[in-house]
């Protein structure tokens, strides 16, 4: 009961802080693709893999006081900053849910921009295709992003690194 909530809280505990909803969506998706046990379902939306279930669960965690959400104005647009509250940490420790260490993967994602994580998560969304097909698909569905060859190369390196 409430294990799915607890698993997300474990992610926030290890990440310490996540800035940006889009970034959060992509981080959880990438972790899921790396084999970490998150139950939130994703489907493809205009901006890449997106989970309505994750968005609703985050709202629940905020409403319960387990997660703090701060809305900040940044260069003319708003962004959201999340961190686990003491109350959330208390719930997590009592929940009995054990989660594997995600630190190293989270750290690697922290070093990357949201745009890059968007590219990686979109590539992972098509991971049942060949390498060439994946790049073609990404160029088709995200034509406005104008990803370069170098972007793809870096993303492939990142994916390989994440999965090992």
């Amino acid at each position, binding site marked *: *009961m*409430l294990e*799915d*909530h607890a698993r997300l809280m474990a992610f926030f505990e290890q990440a310490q802080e996540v800035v*940006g*909803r*889009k970034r959060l*969506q992509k981080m959880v998706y990438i972790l899921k693709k790396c084999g970490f046990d998150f*139950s939130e*379902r994703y*489907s*493809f*939306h*205009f*901006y890449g893999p*997106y989970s*309505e*279930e994750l*968005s*609703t*669960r985050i*709202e*629940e965690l905020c*409403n*319960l*006081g*387990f997660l703090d959400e701060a809305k900040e104005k940044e260069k003319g*647009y*708003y*962004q*959201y900053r999340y961190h686990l509250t003491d*109350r959330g940490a208390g*719930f997590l420790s*009592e*929940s009995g849910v054990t989660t594997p260490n995600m630190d190293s993967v989270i750290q690697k994602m922290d070093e990357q921009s949201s745009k890059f994580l968007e590219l990686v998560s979109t590539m992972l969304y*098509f991971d049942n295709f060949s390498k060439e097909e994946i790049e073609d*698909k990404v160029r*088709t*569905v995200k*034509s406005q992003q104008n990803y370069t060859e170098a972007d793809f190369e870096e993303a492939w390196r990142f994916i390989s690194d994440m999965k090992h």
Partner: protein
Amino acid sequence: MAYRDEKLNEEKVFKDPVHRYIHVRDRVIWDLIGTPEFQRLRRIKQLGTTYLTFHGAEHSRFNHSLGVYEIVRRIIENFRDQPFWDDDERLLCLCASLLHDLGHGPFSHSFEKVFDLDHEDYTRAIILGDTKVNEILRRVDENFPQDVADVIHKTYSNKLVVSLISSQIDADRMDYLQRDAYFTGVSYGHFDMERILRVMRPMEDQMVIKESGMHAVEDYIMSRYQMYWQVYFHPVTRSAEVILSKILHRAKELYLANEYEFKLKPMHFESFFLKEVSLEDYLKLDENVVFYYFHIWKEEEDAILSDLCRRFVDRDLFKYVEFDPGNQYRELMDLKECFTEAGVDPTYYLEVDSSSDLPYDFYRPGEEEERLPIHLQLPTGELKELSRQSDIVESISGKKRTDHKLYFAKDLIEQLPEESDIKKRIYEILKG
């Protein structure tokens, strides 16, 4: 004449309680409707267990799929000769709208959770696999099945086409809101679709709405909001979903333990339990088959499985109380211990259900590019996001309401001896 352009000699019409008539002229559409894979949707209810709350809600995914097709057909008629619209995409849109829910299984919400399945994967598998649907689509063009699958999967290159079937104001939502309102008998889901269709305009990447149509869209957004809380997330329906999930978990547990002899071997479920579901297995399991098993399992030796099936079939559902995980989590732990002590297995007779278990697609204004919002087209041609223009939409796309309930088998607790301490303790916690 090429198969893609073939028309029926005479237009076929389906009488429909929501759209009055559904019109079919294309041979391809008529042939797709006749396939076993599409006809199977007659045996899958659109609203799963909702009929246990609203007795009229027995309509099927077949009805809904035809409805979405009809709405898209009307939108395309309006779009003809408008900028950004390519009429060569017409048949693709019609096929994708008709087939968009093809992969739904029986009671798909619970089934997908318990067996870790995704109906979108099966929609794609049916369209691309060795099926009658695929055979028909391939007659149009060798790549046509892939294009249809891509539109449904939302990865097709023409995003305007995708947005007709999947966006925050699309044919899918417009049909199910009206259809579900009609069959449940509630008054909340109605809005002026004719008006919305008249003010829709094609743009490069999505459909937009002429600003003069804003109030019709407000009505649509409000009806989504009302239908979610009044129908889709009704606490009694959630209780039925909880029991259904418990049945599937119990049957799976018994099967995998390999020690239990079922009176009726769960042949149709075996591949689901073993996570080896082939397309053939998937298509064989519809709600009629599921009900057959549940009826037979009412007589099973296993007391939990038989009791849960009886509850589901006879609508003897779990009761519920409001639950606040933030303040009552320790009580939940105590309650689990009390249930165990009382001989009532909490794994099967106690559950917390949260709003995120059935995510509602709240209108999201596209902050941080989460989802593409609805855009209004101003007389100047400028596009403005809906909630920036509409106070009503802004008010319900702000702070989100969430909800948690604790479901339990109250009758089993009532059966405990009156004087028992454990019974008193359970009631104390539940009332607390």
